[in-house]
């Protein structure tokens, strides 16, 4: 995976009103700035600092992170699936890189 590749996983079948679990991962080194390369060069801090979660038009969550979150950060949270709309996550890193991923929340026929 290259930096910024992201994946959002939601259940295959969702009914209106379900409390679903959303799992997300983004590829990122999450460098703390405390490590050095094998040649002794310091590796500067480089990490995801902000994650915004939008469901339809509504911002439903925002996460502020530091380099203390592990490499290739994962996050999991719940969501009440009460409308058919895209779920979008935008990760922003400490060098201004912006990474976006969306999944469609749609209801299975009964």
């Amino acid at each position, binding site marked *: 995976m290259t930096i910024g590749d992201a994946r959002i996983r939601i259940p295959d079948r969702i009914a209106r009103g379900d409390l679903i679990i959303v799992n997300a991962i983004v590829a990122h080194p999450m460098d703390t700035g*405390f*490590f050095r390369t094998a040649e002794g060069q310091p590796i500067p801090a480089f990490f995801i600092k902000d994650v915004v979660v939008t*469901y339809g038009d509504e911002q*439903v*969550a925002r996460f502020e992170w530091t380099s*203390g*979150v*592990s490499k290739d*950060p994962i*996050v999991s949270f719940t969501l009440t699936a009460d409308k058919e709309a895209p779920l979008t996550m935008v990760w922003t890193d400490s060098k201004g890189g912006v990474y976006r991923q969306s999944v469609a929340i749609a209801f299975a026929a009964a």
Partner: protein
Amino acid sequence: MPQPPETSSRRSFLRISALAGLGLLGTNGLLQSQGSAAGVLGSTGPDPEIPNEQVARILKDLFGDRPLGKGHISLDMPAVAEDGRIVPVIIESDLPMTADHYVKAVHLIVDHNPDPHLAAYHLTPALGSVALQTRIKMKRTTWVRAILETSTGDVWAAYAHVIVSLNGCG
């Protein structure tokens, strides 16, 4: 709404059952004293002391002089983390997520990390519940604090003591 003692005892019971199932209980004095006192039964025992000025300032900036209640939040972490680069964290709360009353933020603080205020999760009622999972880095053995703030300004905390074998912060 369930009362906190019921919930925490139920959770504790589940966790103890899980540990017993894995054969971890009673086999290792370290696990038993550290794990069951802190990581497993997070809602018992005294609050961990504030270790340094940095953590004191973070708590003061976030919560002022408001009391930190114990309950309504659980922090699940391993009692022993072999690799400090990847330590799993599960945070849950039994508090409602309705338009009038909801958990508006969860803060994760690792006492002895270089940057102790590791993450802040800003939430809304649309999430339906508080059930967060992530993976974090830990520098060394320390207390971890998960502290939530409700829309009405109440503050609830849970603590876990984690023994770290390999420094994950450099």
